[in-house]
């Protein structure tokens, strides 16, 4: 066990500290204030990055946050979770030896600014938001700021969606989600937990009570490889592993449970959830190995997450594919076949199996993180067009096939927190326009 590994064990708090005033000022002063800033183009939320960095270099954190908040509702989450190497920082000027630490500066601004006090002018219309993940939260905030009476429905007993259920506390402290929910409540947003829309209240019933509805139920259902032995008892999904720890906090009162005390864990998949599960397993005292069918450079997870995982001692078994799990009622071994990268006719990189290269990897727990699909519960009873994977079809204004019902976030195909947040914001604008037009129509009729 290396030093960092032994340090991380049992530590579920965030390890990365934020920048000091001096560090932030020094980092901000490196910005070249480019004419055509690549960072803004690379940011899905198009935050005016050079401008907020300029404010930080002048020591004005509150103005910096004001600029960020114009385009982003969740700077506390985006600064920690965005795959910045593929977004803003990846597009930073090549003149610089290394890109500006934009995410670090965003976090610094959020933590050191005085938040603005908002007193929305109340509007009489009611809007329902289904799902309290990044899309639902940001849509609820923007609508509440516009003055609408917003009710946020969450199916689980605790709100936050992916920010709470899947992302571990060490990557995004959950107290920040709590703080944000308190802020939403101060804007007048009503949060109803334990409300499974589609079962407790159907979508048509909701539409009768609310002038508009925003569906942001995310992509929740886990997928499987459908291979031999996948049903065995100690094979669970990353969703389940992280839900039990993040939401139920089961590792605290049930630490002897075999899910939280295995010696060896294999995690199948290359997305952020897979890396999160492996890093969590390390913190629970296990040795964790990621099995992924493509090469290291093709990992879907963010660079930050992967490099932290490597530092913490997570092993990576790349170009490997599980073929079957063996064991009587409990999984004991996973049979893995090695793969090689090849180019197909279109020039795309594909992984193909190497014949007779199977080997056995022993483990007491296998965690599957093979992607998710959207749940059809909400839309099944309403006439809303969606595809076989449950993704809802929307028009350019994010309106679904049913009038007054909008949708956005992972349920419409967004793949990152920041993309979901942007769709939530866009939906709020569309809903406001839709309700304002409705009001105008009523006024015209009355005239």
């Amino acid at each position, binding site marked *: 066990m290396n030093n960092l590994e032994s340090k991380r064990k049992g530590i579920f708090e965030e390890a990365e500290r934020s920048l000091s005033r001096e560090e932030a000022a020094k980092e901000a002063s490196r910005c070249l204030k480019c004419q055509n800033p690549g960072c803004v183009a690379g940011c899905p939320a198009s935050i005016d990055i050079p401008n907020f960095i300029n404010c930080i270099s002048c020591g004005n954190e509150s103005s910096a946050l004001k600029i960020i908040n114009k385009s982003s509702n969740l700077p506390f989450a985006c600064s920690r979770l965005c795959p910045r190497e593929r977004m803003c920082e990846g597009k930073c000027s090549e003149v610089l030896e290394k890109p500006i630490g934009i995410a670090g500066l965003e976090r610094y601004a959020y933590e050191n600014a005085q938040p603005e006090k908002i007193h929305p002018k109340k509007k009489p219309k009611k809007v329902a938001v289904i799902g309290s993940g990044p899309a639902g939260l940001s849509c609820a905030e923007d609508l509440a700021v516009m003055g609408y009476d917003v009710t946020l429905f969450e199916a689980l007993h605790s709100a936050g969606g992916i920010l709470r259920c899947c992302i571990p506390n060490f990557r995004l402290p959950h107290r920040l989600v709590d703080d944000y929910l308190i802020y939403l409540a101060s804007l007048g947003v009503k949060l109803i937990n334990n409300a499974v829309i589609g079962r407790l209240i159907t979508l048509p019933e909701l539409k009768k009570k609310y002038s508009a509805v925003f569906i942001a139920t995310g992509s929740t259902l886990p997928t*499987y490889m459908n291979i031999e032995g996948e049903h065995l008892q100690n094979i669970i999904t990353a969703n389940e592993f992280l839900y039990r720890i993040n939401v139920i906090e089961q590792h605290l009162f049930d630490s002897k449970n075999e899910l939280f005390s295995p010696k060896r864990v294999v995690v199948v998949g290359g997305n952020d959830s897979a890396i999160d599960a492996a890093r969590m397993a390390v913190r629970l005292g296990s040795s964790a190995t990621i099995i992924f069918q493509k090469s290291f450079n093709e990992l879907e997870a963010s660079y930050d997450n992967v490099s932290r995982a490597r530092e913490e001692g997570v092993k990576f078994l790349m170009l490997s594919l599980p073929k079957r799990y063996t064991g009587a009622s409990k999984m004991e071994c996973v049979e893995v076949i090695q793969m090689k990268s090849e180019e197909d006719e279109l020039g795309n990189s594909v992984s193909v199996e190497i014949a007779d290269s199977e080997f056995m990897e022993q483990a007491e727990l296998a965690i599957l993180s093979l992607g998710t699909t959207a749940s059809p519960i909400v839309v099944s009873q309403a006439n809303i067009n969606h595809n076989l994977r449950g993704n809802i079809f929307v028009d350019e204004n994010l309106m679904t096939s049913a009038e007054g019902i909008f949708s956005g976030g992972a349920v419409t195909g967004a793949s990152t927190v920041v993309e979901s947040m942007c769709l939530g914001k866009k939906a709020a604008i569309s809903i406001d326009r839709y309700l304002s037009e409705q009001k105008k129509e009523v006024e015209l009729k009355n005239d």
Partner: protein
Amino acid sequence: MSRVLKKQKIAENTFLIDVEAPEIAKKIGPGQFVIIRTKPRTEGICVPVGMVKRNSITIVVKGEKSKMMLNYKKNDHLNDVVGPIGNRANVEEVENVCLIADSYGIPVIYNLAKMYKENKIPIAIVIGEKSKRFLYWEDKLKDLADKIYVFTEDGSRGEKGTVPFHLRNLFYEHIFELAIVSGSPAFMHEVSNFTRQRVKTKAIVNPLMIDPIGLSGTCRIRVDEKIKFAAIEGPEFNAHSIDFEEFVARVGKGYE
């Protein structure tokens, strides 16, 4: 928070809890479950619902899980009651129906029996357990069924023997168009094996749902070679399409 209106021990390791849940009471139907959490920082458990009143529902907590209800008394609160979970069972237009349950499935078939009785479809009910110590609601089921059969393995109540053993005679004497089974995984497996090629059979399964939206994947079950989520597509499936061997291996024979 949901207030407990009544707690009653109705059989060995079996508690009936009447809990205030007006919204769920309005919506819950036959075949659906609820998830309860007694206090913060506990795993949710999925339980069947028996009687439904205007403001409350009656849940039955059984087996190992019932231990967490031991100290509960009237006016205590359950931290969360979430539901309904799964789809509502629909009435099949059949000549007659045979409802089969062990002690885990009694609340489920109680509601199905009510639904079929309202639709004037003749009902036979079969309940079986190891011993009469585990049985409850025989009188309630008797009121709903045209005919009720009780079997216990030790002969302490009704005829001695297992349910699959007695079904052989029963299915020889009577012709049923539909059978619906609910109970512990091993029980449903045995019944389903027996009814295969004899009568169309549905199973209402409860595969460890810890969250109401299928997020964790704990409620998965293989049906017709495909993975289905009981909380989303279930909990009612064609019993003969369910891979019960896999189901029992994953969930265990009972729900402990």
